[in-house]
Structure formats: structure tokens, C-alpha cells
């Protein structure tokens, strides 16, 4: 086993900063969203248990820490969504040139920031303080 030829490994790629960061950020935001899914289903389950259970869960779900968590999930969703669309476009064979992928990496960050801001703005506007 030891001397068998290996396919090209990480070491042969020169990981320029933007590709390394954008790929890793997609993983991190994906992991955050898995946590968000867990919280979302906890929230749904509390709702399904009735008004009393939901009121009791508000102590956790309505806390400041939880609110920070929602903002983090919104930001993670925005990035993961835009980066995911970038991946789907790559899958069609488009946008793979270095200059294009560098540009789209920045575009993903910009679009994610805009979506995060708009979503947070609306969340705060729709109901004061929630």
C-alpha cells in the first residue's frame, strides 16, 4: 500500500488567499446553518406543543444570546446561499477562469453583506426590538 502512486494532493495547489477563504467560509457557514436547523426545529416543536410550552421556551428563544444567534444564522444563510449559487454556476462549467472566480468571490461577499443588512433591517423594522 505504501508505495502506490497518489493522485495530486493538496500540496500541489497554490492556495491563493481568496479561494482558500471562500471555500472554508462556505463550510463554516454550512456548519452554522446546521446548528440553525437544530434551533429551528426546536422552535417548531415548542410551537407544536402549545401556547404554554412556547411561552416557557421564550425564556431561551427570546434571550439576547439567542437574538445574536439569529443574526449569525441570517448572515451565515446569506453567505452560504450566494456561495452555493456560485458553486452551481461552476457546475455548468462557467466562471472557472482565475479572474472570473476571483471576481465572483468578492461578488459573493458583497451580495451576502447586502442580503444580511436588508434581512436584519426588515426584522428590526417589522417589529421593534425583536
Amino acid at each position, binding site marked *: 500500500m505504501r508505495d502506490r502512486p497518489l493522485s495530486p494532493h493538496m500540496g500541489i495547489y497554490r492556495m491563493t488567499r481568496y479561494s482558500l477563504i471562500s471555500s472554508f467560509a462556505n463550510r463554516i457557514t*454550512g456548519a452554522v446553518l*446546521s446548528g440553525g436547523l437544530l434551533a429551528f426545529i426546536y422552535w*417548531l416543536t415548542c*410551537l*407544536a406543543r402549545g401556547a404554554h410550552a412556547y411561552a416557557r421556551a421564550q425564556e431561551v428563544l427570546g434571550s439576547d444570546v439567542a437574538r445574536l444567534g439569529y443574526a449569525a444564522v441570517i448572515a451565515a*444563510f446569506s453567505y452560504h446561499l450566494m456561495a452555493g449559487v456560485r458553486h452551481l454556476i461552476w457546475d455548468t462549467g462557467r466562471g472557472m477562469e482565475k479572474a472570473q472566480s476571483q471576481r465572483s468571490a468578492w461578488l459573493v461577499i458583497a451580495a451576502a453583506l447586502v442580503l444580511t443588512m436588508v434581512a436584519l433591517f426588515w426584522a428590526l423594522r417589522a417589529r421593534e426590538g425583536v
Partner: protein
Amino acid sequence: MRRDLGSAGNGVHHWWVQRLTSVALVPLGVWLLVSLVTLPSLDFVTLVSWIGGTWTASLLTLFVLTASWHSSLGVQVILEDYVHDHALKTISLVLSGFVHAVLAAFGVFAVLRIAFGSPL
């Protein structure tokens, strides 16, 4: 070709389902975000009557299933990449699969329970 080792087509299936669920999650995720952010209030009655609607209940069921599946595939890749100990890797992969299945079941059951009106 040995079919008992390596991917043997399994990798392609993983890749394809990840794409399929990601395409579905674009509209579902945007819909959910916009809905949650624009709901007039997050009190019990507003939420229950929103979730109980035919469209919301159906789309939420789809979202819970698709998101659980997509999350399961994503966490699987992360575990495969970063957990190096063989036994620990197997255990964590099995656990992650079970947790995601339980999540999907709880999510779908909660939506249906609300839609069919047991609470209130």
C-alpha cells in the same frame, strides 16, 4: 471494479443529491427568510395561524426534509475530512445520520401537528 470498496458510484450520488437539495433550498430558504423577517409579530397565535396555512405547511415540510438532507450530506463531508481516527469517524458519521433523521421527523411532525390543529 471492486464494488465493496471506495465510492463505486456512491460519490456521484452524494454529489448529485447535494446539488439537487441545494437547488431546491434556494427558493425554499429565501421564502422562509423573507416570511420570518416580514411576519407582523412572532407571538404564538400569529405563528400558528401562519404555519397552519396550506402553502406554509407544505413548503415548511419540504424545507425541513430538504434542509435536513442537505445538512446531513454537508456534515458528513466535514466529518470525513476532519475526523481522522477510523472508529471515531464511523461513530460520528452514524450519530450525525441518526440526529439528522430525528431532526427531520421532529420537524415534519411539528408542522403537521400545528397544521392539523392540536395546539391552541
